[in-house]
């Protein structure tokens, strides 16, 4: 990796939950290659599993004829992960906050919250079919 030179690894997975394990080994190996420290590794690993699960389940509705597309953009100082599904999308703002007392004991609804807690930046496209997440090797001061 030369200075400012980015490497893009692209992956396209059929929308079956069985492929979450493949996604897990791939992100593990990429984080390893980038020499992320253990704690951020675990956080990014979790965020990618959450985002991949959402693309496969909520986006593509586990239709194996639709693929979920992943881009891992490796830069000197950060990893950017872009995940695209081919569903009808959703609106981030409509998702309930899982930390509100009335939601605490719900059995779901924590995925996006965790993605945002684990990564430095998370943004959705307007349609809600594509999410971009960034993790810096050194978390920038805010």
């Amino acid at each position, binding site marked *: 990796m030369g200075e400012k030179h980015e490497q893009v690894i692209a992956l396209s997975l059929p929308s079956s*939950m*069985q492929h*979450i*394990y493949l996604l*897990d080994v791939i992100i593990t190996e990429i984080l390893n290659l980038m020499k992320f420290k253990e*704690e951020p590794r*675990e956080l990014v*690993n*979790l965020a990618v*599993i*959450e985002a991949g*699960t959402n693309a496969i389940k909520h986006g593509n509705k586990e239709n194996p004829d639709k693929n979920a597309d992943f881009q891992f953009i490796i830069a000197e100082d950060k990893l950017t992960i872009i995940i695209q599904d081919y569903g009808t999308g959703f609106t981030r703002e409509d998702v309930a906050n*899982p*930390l509100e007392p009335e939601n*605490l*004991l*719900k*059995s*779901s609804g*924590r*995925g996006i*919250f*965790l993605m945002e*807690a684990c990564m430095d930046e998370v943004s959705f496209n307007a349609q809600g079919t594509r999410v971009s997440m960034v993790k810096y090797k050194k978390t920038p001061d805010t």
Partner: protein
Amino acid sequence: MQVNIRHKGSVTILDIEGKIIGNETLTLKRIIDEQVQASEGGTLNLILNMARVQIMDSSGLGILVSSYSSITQNKGRVVLVNLGGNIRSLIVMAKLVTIFERYETEAEAIASFL
């Protein structure tokens, strides 16, 4: 994910190993439900030994929450032991620290049932 089931007196202990992610979370739900069904009067005293859990996702956490709800409603208890740093942070992030009973060791957890 692999789950080993042990019984000590009236307490059921699940030693969970590996990754509680994806569809493995459904397997964990099935195993816990089976233990509920097999328990006396439907009252389960459950210890989840998380020592060898490498990662757990939000679906896995959701299974823990729903198991907690149904088991405590039946006057049972769910206790977590040997939480690694990452699972602990997950529970903290999700503001579930006050919900789950946690002990450092299995011995302490078992003592809490006596």
